[in-house]
Each structure stands twice: as C-alpha cells, then as structure tokens.
C-alpha cells in the first residue's frame, strides 16, 4: 500500500492507505476525525467538505492518495484552542443548526465563501451554498450566520 504524507490541521501525518480509500474515510476511520460527515456519498450534499490547500473540496469525491504532500483542514482544525472560529460562533449565536449533521460541511464551506468573496450579500451566500444541503433549518439561519460572521 502507498504511504501518504499529509498535513492535517497543522500536524504532519504519515500513513499507509489503500489506493481506493477516499479522503473522508482516511480522516474518519484512520485519523479518528469524525467531524467530517458522509451524507450522500454521491457528491451532492457537502457534509464532507474539508479544505485542501485552503480551498473547499468534497472529501468523498477525492482519494486519500490525491492529498499526498498537501495540507488538509477539517472542522476539528478551525477553532483556536477553546475559542471557537468566528464562523462557528456565528452559527451558535444565530441558531444556524438544528440536528447538526450538515454543520461541519456548512462551516467549512462558509469559511471558504468568506475567504473568496469580499462583499457578501444574501443572494451570493445562497448561490454559494449550492453544494451544501441541510434537511432541518430551511437555510434561513445558516445564511444569517454566514452574513453575521462575514461582517465581524
């Protein structure tokens, strides 16, 4: 089996992986980082979104070997110790989650949106959330949380 060297949340890791192992299973099963979820497994829901070199990608649609030599950030890596990331805080303050299943992917997507788009408004946020599904909230408070975090 090939060996991969991946920096996950600031830590250099070296591991043997099967070629066909998806990045999401490497993170969840091998690294015990179970914050990244699998919602659909058909590349549509965005529950599995992580950052690859700072950009949002679907970890269910990528092989672990493709991340060799790269930096990955998961939901476990965004807070600063006990201090939540501003986007996490905004989701808490604005009730941006109900069951919480979609939330890790939503937050990783939201951080990416805020990084890329300087002047966010509701329309842009809704368009940018194209790749993230939520079965609970109706998106209202998710959009509110992202706008609040962007304006902080």
């Amino acid at each position, binding site marked *: 089996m090939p060996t991969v060297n991946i920096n996950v949340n600031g830590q250099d890791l070296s591991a043997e992986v099967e*070629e*066909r192992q998806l990045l999401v299973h490497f993170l969840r099963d091998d690294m015990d980082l179970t914050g990244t979820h699998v919602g659909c497994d058909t590349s549509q829901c965005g529950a599995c979104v992580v950052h690859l070199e700072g950009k949002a990608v679907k970890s269910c649609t990528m*092989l672990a*070997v*493709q991340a060799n030599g790269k930096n990955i950030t998961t939901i476990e890596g965004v807070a600063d110790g006990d201090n939540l990331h501003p986007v996490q805080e905004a989701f808490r303050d604005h009730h941006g989650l109900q069951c919480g299943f979609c939330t890790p992917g939503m937050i990783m*997507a939201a951080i990416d949106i805020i990084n*890329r788009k300087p002047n966010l408004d509701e329309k842009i946020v809704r368009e*940018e959330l*194209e*790749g993230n599904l939520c079965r609970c909230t109706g998106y209202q408070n998710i959009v509110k949380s992202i706008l609040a975090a962007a304006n902080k």
Partner: protein
Amino acid sequence: MYNFIYEKVNTIQEVEKLLSENEETKILAGGQTLIPTMKQRLASPSTLIDISGIDELNFINDNGNSVTIGSTVTHNEVSSSDIIMKKIPSLASLAEGIGDPHVRNMGTIGGSIANNDPTADYPTACLSLNAKIKTNNREINAEDFFIGLFETALEENEIVVSVEFNIPKKSSYMKFPNPASRYAMAGVYLSVFDDAVNVAVTGASENGVFKWTEMEEALSINLSLENAKNIKLSSDGVMSDIHADSAYRANLVDIMALRAVENLI
C-alpha cells in the same frame, strides 16, 4: 470501488508511456466525474494516472486574438482569471456556473471536454468560440472533437493538453440548470465574430452538444430578438427524462437563445 494502481506523474511523456503499457489505464484530473463513476463501479480502471501535478498543463495564456487554457486548469481558476474575465467574460461566467464551489475547486476543463457529457457546459464554449483542442500529438477543431454521447475524437493514448478559444466581439452563455445537479437542462452559447455568428447548444440533443445552424443563419442576418423568435428548435432527437420531456426541453433551448440574444443587444 474496485482497487487500482495509482501513479502520480510530472510530465506528459510519463503519461504517454503509462497509457501505452496498459489498456485499462485511465487519466485522473479533478476526479469530479471519474471518482463518482468508480464508486458506482461503472468504471474500474486498473491504473489511474494523476495528471494534476503536471506543470506544463496548468496555465492560462493571452495570445492577443485568442486565449489558451491548459487542461488541468480548474473551473474556479477559469472563473477567477483576470485574462478570461477581461477577454471572454462569458467563459468566466460559464465556469462559475458549473456545479458548486467545491466541484469547481477540483474539476478541470480537460476532464470536462474529454468526458463530453451531453449536459456539460464547456463543450458549448468550444463549439461557439471555434476552439482548437491540442493533444499530445495533434490539434483538433472543436467541430471534429465532440462526436456523440460521452464520445470524442480522442484516441486511446491521447491526452488533452490545452484548449485555445478565439476571442469574439461579444458573447453570452445562458443555461437553465437542473435544480438538483446544476448540469444544463438547456444551455446556449452565442458568440459574435466579424464574419460569423455561432450558436452552440448543450443539455438538449440525444447526440450531445451541437451547433444550431438555423439560429446562426437567422442571427447572422440581424442579431435581433425578432429573428431569434422566428426560429424554434424541433423536439425531434431532444432528450426526454423525468426532469423534462423533449418538447419542454426544446422550448427551454429557445428561451435560453432569446436570453443570450437579449444580453448582447
């Protein structure tokens, strides 16, 4: 997914060598089509060649009258490229309308055209902007490249190196996205050159992307809504599925064409 051998390469020569050694080998670019297909076991290559690290495939060039995009350039890189936004804004907005941000961060132009999905966006740009597709051993005009459903002129050992688009006087791409997947249920790419008006259509035909010559002729006489309104796409040979039957889809194409014209006058 069945297992395979994974090779990450740095040069086109290495790709050629690996492709010639084994028929069951496939190129992996952004993986946004291939990996879902392999997960469903609809594809089971014995070897995957990851081309994402080949520097000579990753560039955007401004050649004056044309722009060239290397095959591993992602949709996100095209949509945020200063060159593309300035020279062919409709191409930047086409790229920004593909799937969702996560797909756009991985998916590539080379993968999209090599796959030639009948509802994909880039093939319309290639036909409408008289693109030349450069491979490791020849140059293919877009009109000869897209052959049918998921079928292109690429040979077994051929790899897309880059795509060169001519810069039009003006152009517009209008698509009606499938509400779930964002692939086109109808997409129309209209470009105006000094000597021609080109109209390419995706999402509609059972044979994949095509040039809509009746509309081109009408709009060459005069680029007007009136002329566009006189032309209707026949629903013969138009796809029909749970999302839209052929008459509805053909009508969507008419509407997208009107919107594209409206955008340019």
